[in-house]
C-alpha cells in the first residue's frame, strides 16, 4: 500500500475522515448540551414502546424512575428524559466508534509519513498532531501542542522501553500522536 499511495493522498483522506468524525461528535453532543433540537424522528423512536418490552425484564421502560425528574412523573417529563436517555446511549456509543476511526486513520497516516514530518488536524471537537521522529530525538522532547495540550517527555531509554527484546537503534522511526478530544461523557448517578 505504501508504494502505491502517496503521503499527500493519505493525509487528505485522513483529514476528511477526521472532519467527518468531528461533525458526528458535535452533533451527538448538541441535544445533550441543550444547544439544539432533537429531530422529530429521533424523538418518536425514543418514545416508541420497544418490540421486546413484554419479554425484556431489564427494559429501561419498566423503570420510570430513570426518566422522572424528582417527583415529576408527568408524561411530558418522562418522554423528554427518555429521549435524552437514548441520546446519551448513542453518544457514548459514537464516542467509542470515533475513537476507533481516529486510531485507524492515525495508523494509516503513520504508515505513509516520513521521518521529520508533522501532520496537524484541527476540527471542532478533535485536535490532533502526528509526528514521525527518530527514537534518539524523544529524550527531553516537548511534543508540539495540540489545542494547547503540552507534553514533555523525560530523558529515558526509549529504545529499551518501546522495543523490548527487539532490534532498535537511535535512528529507528517512531510516531507520536497527541490527541485532544472534546466530548460530553454522560454518567448516570
Amino acid at each position, binding site marked *: 500500500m505504501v508504494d502505491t499511495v502517496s503521503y499527500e493522498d493519505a493525509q487528505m483522506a485522513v483529514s476528511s475522515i477526521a472532519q467527518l468524525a468531528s461533525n458526528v461528535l458535535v452533533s451527538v*453532543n448538541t441535544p*445533550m*448540551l*441543550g444547544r439544539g433540537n432533537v429531530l422529530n424522528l429521533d424523538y418518536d423512536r425514543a418514545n416508541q414502546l420497544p418490540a421486546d418490552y413484554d419479554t425484556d425484564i431489564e427494559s429501561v421502560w419498566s423503570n420510570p424512575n430513570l426518566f422522572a425528574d424528582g417527583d415529576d412523573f408527568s408524561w411530558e417529563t418522562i418522554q423528554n428524559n427518555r429521549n*435524552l436517555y437514548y441520546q446519551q446511549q448513542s453518544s457514548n456509543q459514537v464516542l467509542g466508534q470515533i475513537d476507533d476511526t481516529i*486510531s485507524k486513520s*492515525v*495508523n*494509516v497516516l*503513520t*504508515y505513509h509519513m516520513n521521518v521529520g514530518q508533522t501532520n496537524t488536524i484541527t476540527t471542532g471537537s478533535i485536535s490532533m498532531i502526528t509526528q514521525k521522529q527518530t527514537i534518539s530525538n524523544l529524550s527531553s522532547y516537548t*511534543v508540539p501542542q*495540540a*489545542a*494547547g*495540550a*503540552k*507534553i*514533555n*517527555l*523525560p*530523558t*529515558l531509554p526509549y529504545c529499551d*522501553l*518501546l*522495543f523490548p527484546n527487539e532490534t532498535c537503534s537511535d535512528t*529507528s*522511526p*517512531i*510516531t*507520536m*500522536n*497527541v*490527541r*485532544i*478530544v*472534546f*466530548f*460530553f*461523557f454522560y454518567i448516570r*448517578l
Partner: protein
Amino acid sequence: MSRSVSLGFLDSTGASRTLTNLQQLIEIIIPRDPSLTLPAMTFQNVSGQNTSSSGNNNRQFSLFYVNVTGPSALITLSASFEFKSNNPALGFAVIYRFDAIPILNSSMNMTDGGRVFCPAGKSNKYLIILILFFFFSLVVYFS
C-alpha cells in the same frame, strides 16, 4: 464539556507501542478552557477570625458563596477555588457545603466535606486549588 488528552506511540508499521515501567514521569499539561475568564485574586486577612468577630456573623470560618446554576440541568459543572497563603507556616482548614451554610465546631459538623492544607513542607509554591465536581447542585458555600 470534557476534554481528554492522549499520547500514543506507533512504530514504522503503524502498530501502537506500549510504554511501561517508566523511571520518570511524562508530563501532560491539559489546557484550561480558553474562553474561561479568571477573576483577580483578592487579599483577605483570615488569621484574625474568631467566634466573636461580628463581621463574619460569629463564625470561625470566612464564608464564600458561589452560585453555579448552569444553563442546562444536564451539564456537569465544576467549581475551582484557588488560594495562595501569604504565610507558608500557617495551615488552612477548608470546608464546603452544597445548598447551605457549612458549620463546623466541636459539637456540630454540618459540612459536605473538608480538607486541611499545610503549605509548609510542600515546595515553595503555596498555590492551592480545590476543585469540586458536582451534578445538578445549585449553590455551594466555601469556608
